């Protein structure tokens, strides 16, 4: 509040405060074309001309996946904060506060349950805007919670990955999320529930080297960077320029690591189709018992 807000009447005050988004026009990193931000939003954050898939805000992603944009948010568990009492150029606790304010979320993973073209699923989404989507204790525990929820509800589990990898500030506690999440992948398998990974830009490091590469089906968004080692590290090691398209979704598909590269507009239909194909027994039984109930 400054002096002017105290003297101007409320109606005019709101006029003064009218917020203008910082960037009304967004530049496509690929083609350089300028897109009006509303147009981008309406197009699921895909640049209309070039087809470049920009980062999609978590809420909009969830809205786009579930029938009537209706879903239940699942709580993510609390975890010990800052086990290493870590500080680099900033204190880790300060960094956490900063990102919590920025995103409105406790950490980098959001969970939701609901229906996708009539098929029940549990979905986890990694938010790259929260400290690079890094895999710390909170994210690991959230993913585990989501997988347990899928098992309890006997529904498929779908995860949208986006992460630079481990959360450095949590040291070895971060690395331990690799075996921890893998254990729950095994339980999904034992429960005969589909586990589908959607790799979005970027998915690298310890995330790729654990649950992101253990899906029954791997789907990637066009152009997404997917890999283990970062491009800069590889360049420094081999001292050569990297081949064009290296570590992109299409490259991974070519090398047998990804089943399909799917445009965002087709994502929901593809996921729903796969889930209903895998869950056919369960869905048929459910239909039969629903009929019996009606009769």
């Amino acid at each position: 509040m400054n002096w002017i807000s105290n003297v101007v009447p409320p109606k005019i005050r709101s006029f003064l405060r009218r917020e203008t988004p910082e960037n009304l026009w967004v530049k496509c990193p690929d083609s350089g074309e300028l897109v009006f931000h509303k147009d981008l939003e309406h197009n699921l954050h895909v640049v209309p001309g070039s087809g470049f898939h920009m980062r999609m805000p978590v809420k909009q992603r969830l809205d786009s996946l579930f029938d009537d944009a209706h879903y239940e948010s699942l709580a993510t568990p609390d975890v010990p904060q800052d086990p290493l009492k870590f500080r680099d150029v900033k204190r880790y606790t300060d960094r956490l506060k900063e990102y919590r304010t920025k995103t409105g979320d406790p950490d980098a993973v959001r969970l939701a349950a609901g229906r996708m073209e009539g098929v029940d699923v549990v979905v986890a989404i990694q938010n790259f805007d929260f400290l690079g989507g890094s895999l710390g204790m909170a994210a690991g525990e959230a993913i585990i919670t989501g997988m347990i929820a899928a098992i309890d509800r006997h529904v498929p589990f779908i995860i949208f990955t986006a992460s630079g990898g481990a959360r450095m500030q949590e040291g070895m506690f971060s690395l331990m999320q690799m075996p921890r999440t893998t254990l729950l992948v095994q339980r999904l398998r034992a429960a005969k529930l589909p586990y589908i990974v959607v790799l979005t830009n970027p998915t690298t490091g310890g995330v790729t080297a654990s649950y992101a590469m253990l899906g029954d089906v791997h789907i990637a968004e066009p152009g997404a960077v997917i890999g283990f080692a970062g491009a800069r590290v590889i360049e420094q090691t081999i001292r050569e320029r990297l081949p064009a398209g290296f570590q992109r979704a299409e490259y991974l598909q070519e090398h047998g690591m990804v089943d399909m590269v799917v445009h965002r507009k087709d994502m929901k239909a593809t996921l729903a189709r796969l889930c209903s194909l895998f869950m056919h027994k369960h869905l048929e039984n459910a239909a039969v018992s629903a009929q019996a109930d009606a009769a």
Partner: protein
Amino acid sequence: MRTYLDFEKPVADLEAKVDELRALELNGESVSIGEELTRLEAKATKALSDLYAGLTPWQKTQVARHPQRPHFNDYITHLVTDFTPLAGDRAFGEDQAIVGGFGRFQGRSICVIGQEKGSDTDSRIKHNFGMARPEGYRKAARLMELADRFDVPVLSLVDTAGAFPGVDAEERGQAQAIAHSIDVCLGIGVPNIAVIIGEGGSGGAIAIASCNKVLMLEHAIYTVASPEASASILWRESGRAEDAATNMKITAQDLLRFGIIDTIIPEPAGGAHRDRDRILSATGDAIGAALGDLASFDREAIKMARAEKFLAMGRRI
């Protein structure tokens, strides 16, 4: 010829003096030298054990990477009889960065896998400095599955700066190979023991260290990313590696406190390379004890105990 690390200079000076005196004594130059020699030797020994009792994480990093530190092959030679190495991932190739095979430990069958860093230029190149490609992890997974089928416990000897970062490794699915190896490690119904003998570097380490028991040598390090890599991520300069090593809690002592490892194997004063036989035997004893603890578990109990251990990690600190 002994190689000294920079921070060992005071000890190096003392030991050089001891050597000088010893040479004099051999020449029979002076009578009173014996007493002085004993005094100096005691001083050097004390300086060494004092120094090693208070190593900083960065100093431990250097000890863990010491070129004379015992490596995979030394452990095999000392601890395993009838060792029969097996090769290849049955898909693409053979990766010598990870060595694996079957043999006998304390008279019983064992499957051993682990990274070998090499000990001279030729062997270092042959083993790619202990940095494995996907074939190495796929071979490890293959051997663990064999061990599972034949009811043979698995021993992982971990010593790597990390999985190899290269175009070919990425092309052939480094991430998937590591993920699969973790998956197999956690899924087998036979006991598995990992020993971090030097460097436990990131995904390249956890790929074969997702085990029932994780043992660690006193001055080994176990990291989410090497101190150099962490420094370049966090401070944007790899020169801050010492700060990264300090802040990231990579020592056996910290990790035992956090419940991430199960046992510390004490090293001789001056580090494992000062007395190889002693550390190799001590490691053998620790492995024997760990296997003994798991001897009464059936297949389901083994899997359950492993899962419970990892799932409990970090839930109470």
